């Protein structure tokens, strides 16, 4: 797969430069780091940071702004940033009320974030961490990966922080969302790392991979490619399994990179039909490329059980380069 780039080793650096070229009116990059943060730092509020490997754009820089993240760290492609980078993000996001780290459940991300927490505590910055593990493709919850549902956690914790809640409260809301949220993906084609010329795995022309990770990690099974309606059924079944059958839901349909919106909305219709069949109340659906895997083709479904509290936080005002929400006062 050909890439629009100059040098695979500089791709993240050049991305960040481009990102600030385009969004420099509201966002800035902390000197000497890969941390993107808001220019207009809020005086006293809990800071929310996230981050991880690059290759998932718009995650995570695309979610920095009022109502969502205060800072995002970009690692190398598919590689967790180092602890020093997470620390810089914590420092940028702290305004004295503490900082919440929203971390996806990968060994690297968790370890680097933990080291950064230890360094921050040594500086007297209060931190808490929540670990997103929404991917039900993995059986053992301790090993479950964090995937697209993470973006909903950004939104919920970001809105809670913006509303002036304390670090403990914001953390608790984030954990509540994580508990009530499940995701699962399928891949129709593999992604190719900028540093490599070959795809990260290979699928035959009639094959798909069920339960793929956002780094192309192996899924649950490889099987003959299914129609959108069948995929919707499969993913709905798996994600609903551990959730409240009679609940109200928000669904996030996430394109993995090269799946056209044309197809994503077809899938959205199929998911809606699946939920309707199960008499589940669908409050809101999000469709688009929220957390990609470079140029992988495929889609993930996230279901989140919502109550009025979570719903209000999801609808609250936000202004980032990817997710804007007029809020209730509009």
């Amino acid at each position, binding site marked *: 797969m050909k890439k629009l780039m100059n040098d695979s*080793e500089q791709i993240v650096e050049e991305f960040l430069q481009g990102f600030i070229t385009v969004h420099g009116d509201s966002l800035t990059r902390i000197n000497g780091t890969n941390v993107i943060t808001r220019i207009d730092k809020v005086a006293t509020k809990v800071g929310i940071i996230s981050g991880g*490997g690059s290759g998932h754009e718009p995650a995570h820089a695309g979610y920095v702004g009022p109502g969502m993240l205060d800072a995002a760290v970009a*690692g*190398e*492609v*598919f*590689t*967790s*940033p*180092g*602890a*020093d*980078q997470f620390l810089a993000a914590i420092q940028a996001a702290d305004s004295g009320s503490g900082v919440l780290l929203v971390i996806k459940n*990968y*060994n*690297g991300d968790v*370890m*680097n974030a*933990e*080291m950064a927490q230890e360094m921050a505590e040594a500086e007297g910055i209060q931190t808490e961490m929540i670990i997103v593990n929404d991917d039900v493709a*993995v059986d053992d919850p301790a*090993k479950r*990966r964090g995937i697209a549902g993470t973006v909903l956690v950004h939104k919920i914790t970001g809105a809670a922080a913006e509303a002036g809640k304390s670090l403990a409260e914001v953390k608790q809301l984030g954990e509540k969302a994580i508990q009530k949220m499940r995701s699962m993906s399928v891949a129709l084609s593999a992604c190719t*790392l900028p*540093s*490599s010329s070959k795809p*990260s*795995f290979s699928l035959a022309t009639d094959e798909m991979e069920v339960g793929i*990770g956002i*780094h*192309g*990690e*192996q899924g649950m099974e490889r099987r003959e490619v299914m129609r959108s309606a069948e995929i919707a059924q499969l993913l709905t079944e798996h994600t609903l399994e551990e959730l409240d059958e009679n609940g109200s839901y928000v669904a996030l349909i996430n394109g993995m990179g090269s799946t056209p919106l044309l197809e994503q909305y077809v899938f959205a219709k199929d998911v809606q039909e699946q939920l309707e069949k199960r008499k589940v109340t669908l409050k809101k659906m999000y469709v688009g490329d929220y957390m990609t895997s470079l140029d992988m083709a495929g889609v993930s479904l996230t279901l989140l059980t919502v109550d009025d509290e979570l719903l209000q936080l999801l609808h609250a005002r936000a202004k980032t380069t990817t997710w804007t929400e007029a809020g209730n006062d509009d």
Partner: protein
Amino acid sequence: MTTEQLHEWMKETYQLIQDNKEELSALDQEVGDGDHGTNMNRGFQAIVEELPNWAGESLATTLQKIGMTLISKVGGASGPLLGTGFMRLSTSFKNEVNWGDGLESASEGIAKRGKAEVGEATLLDVWSAVSKSVREHGLDWNRVADVSRDAMERTKELEAKRGRGALLGERSIGHLDPGAVSSDYLFQALARVMKGADDECRT
């Protein structure tokens, strides 16, 4: 160990990693996400480039800077783990260079940081095996090299329980752990550098 030997160790390690970068990434593609070669190469390249700037520093300070560089530049899972290993070596060598103590402390640090145990098919298996061997048999660098290689090779038969390989469950059996392979390079390089020094002393 002198700081010169430490510098040599880093350069030899970088050479091995550079030569086997693609292979490390290929191994990581089998059980993980395919970036381990790139990650390690980025980290050790940065170290080797920095070495001249650290020329006057003590052994402990140099080890600490190596650790910080690994944490900062390698990233991923291997960065904080190897970084922790070298930070522990640094602390341990502050007063006295005792390899038994140093490697034990490093292994413990890695296990704690990774919430890992020996036998889970990770780089810890290599660090821990080397540490035990030095504790039991003293500084026999040939033995260190053998023990490291054996531990590395054994990860092929083990089911991965930590890191991305753990997602594969039993399917991880039959694959070498990429982190174990790169840590083996580290100890092969160490043994070679230290053996060379021993040989020089003997002549």
